[in-house]
């Protein structure tokens, strides 16, 4: 049965999504998949769901693409003004509180789950989970989006405190890859952003280079592609 044409083309853009952020010794790593859907169609297979708020604070977006974009735009604007007024970089907690205020005060209108993470000199690396409803919780790691359902069990077992940067990044990439394997609304590449005292590093983990899991097989060369 093919999807009804109007439903298919007019469904709102949603980032089904898998997002997560992990605090490690010295900073944070944010990770996300890259699939944006309108109903069942993949509108963008290489979206960037990790958005910059300030030099030292980033945001993972999930749920309605429109809602998360508008919240991040407002918060980026407020933080920009705040930093000018303050004379020093704003804290991750401040960024989190602003995102929380918007999410909470507009809870009947918004449908977006967000994760704020970054580094500042007072609290080091911090991760704040702000799910639907506008609850704000500081956590050692946070997950979100439809794909996160598949990660509760995995992370209960695999996460441990005081990880190094390498361990944390491996955990993030593996987690997002596992979620992509099972969640139809997540897919594409895994993007990671590391934020620490030294600055910011963006990484791109290509779809075909991700680890393979149960019942998945490696693609092989064919006349279509030489490699």
């Amino acid at each position, binding site marked *: 049965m093919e999807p009804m044409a109007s439903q298919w083309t007019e469904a709102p853009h949603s980032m089904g999504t898998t997002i997560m952020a992990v605090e490690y010794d010295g900073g944070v790593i944010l990770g996300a998949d890259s699939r944006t859907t309108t109903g069942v169609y993949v509108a963008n297979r290489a979206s960037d769901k990790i958005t910059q708020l300030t030099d030292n604070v980033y945001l993972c977006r999930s749920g309605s693409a429109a809602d998360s974009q*508008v919240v991040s735009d*407002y918060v980026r604007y*407020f933080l920009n003004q705040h930093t000018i007024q303050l004379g020093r970089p704003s804290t991750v907690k401040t960024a989190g509180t*602003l995102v*929380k*205020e*918007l*999410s*909470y*005060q*507009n*809870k*009947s*209108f918004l449908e977006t789950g967000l994760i704020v993470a970054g580094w500042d000199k007072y609290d080091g690396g911090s991760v704040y*989970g702000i*799910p*639907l*409803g*506008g*609850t*704000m*919780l500081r*956590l050692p790691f946070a997950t979100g989006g439809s794909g996160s*359902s598949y990660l*509760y069990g995995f992370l209960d077992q695999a996460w441990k405190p005081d990880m190094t940067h390498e361990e944390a990044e491996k955990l993030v990439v593996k987690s997002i890859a596992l979620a992509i394997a099972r969640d139809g609304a997540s897919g594409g590449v895994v993007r990671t952003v590391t934020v620490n005292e030294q600055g910011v590093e963006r990484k791109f983990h290509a779809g075909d280079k991700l680890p393979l899991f149960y019942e998945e097989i490696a693609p092989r060369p064919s006349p279509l592609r030489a490699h």
Partner: protein
Amino acid sequence: MRWESYNGGHEASEEEKQVYVGRSLMASSRPFTLMPTPGGPITHTQHPYVTGTSVLGLKYKDGVLIAADTAGSYGSTTRYKSVERLKQISNNTVLGATGEISDFQALTQLLDRLIVTDAMWDDGNNLGPLDIHNFLTRVMYNRRNKFDPLWNSLILGGVKNGVKYLGSVSMIGVHFVDQHIATGFGIHLAQPIFRSEWKENMTLEEGRKLLEKALLVLFYRDRSAINKIQIANITEDGVRISQPYALKPTWNFKAFKNPSSATPGTW
């Protein structure tokens, strides 16, 4: 337009549907209220997202004990396992909440402003648990009247001038005081235990044992409960909220080991 909100079923025009942005950040421009801004968006009865389950409270010889687990549920998933659902409000009061955690966080922020302003009067008297209970009742009831409730059931306990106080407020403004109180599932599972086993002037140990007994029953029978709990102890000397600790469940009953051996297929 003053009467816009009375126009039942009226679809707000584009200008009216404003994202509520500026006001919330200038806290000083609004007095103690969680009311929607006049002319601002009208929000209607919502649904909760991240929720906490039962809160229990009882009076004992030297004060009041309030207990809750530390779970934050997201529908049927236990999404967060270290949520603080008991908060110290002032040096003689503790508030515990069932229901939507974001609304509880907003309430504690509001109460913080209330307490600070009260302290600034520096007039030799401070708001006690009874006053805060009354304030919360008004807030909850007024929100209910606007069809925009704070989705919580609250338990408020404290001690002032030797008088122990324990009260609760629901999301529709129903409020009462008692010697022992519970919210959520606790109403059905813990209250009967309290009615049977609570007595006047229990020691701290007896009080804790009774709370732990009720919390364990809730862990067995409430699907949203976890066995990681906190207990707050309020006495004339102040407030102490314990670090989270875990209760020990009992599973090794003989009857549990092979329940379907006699009747296969039984559940």
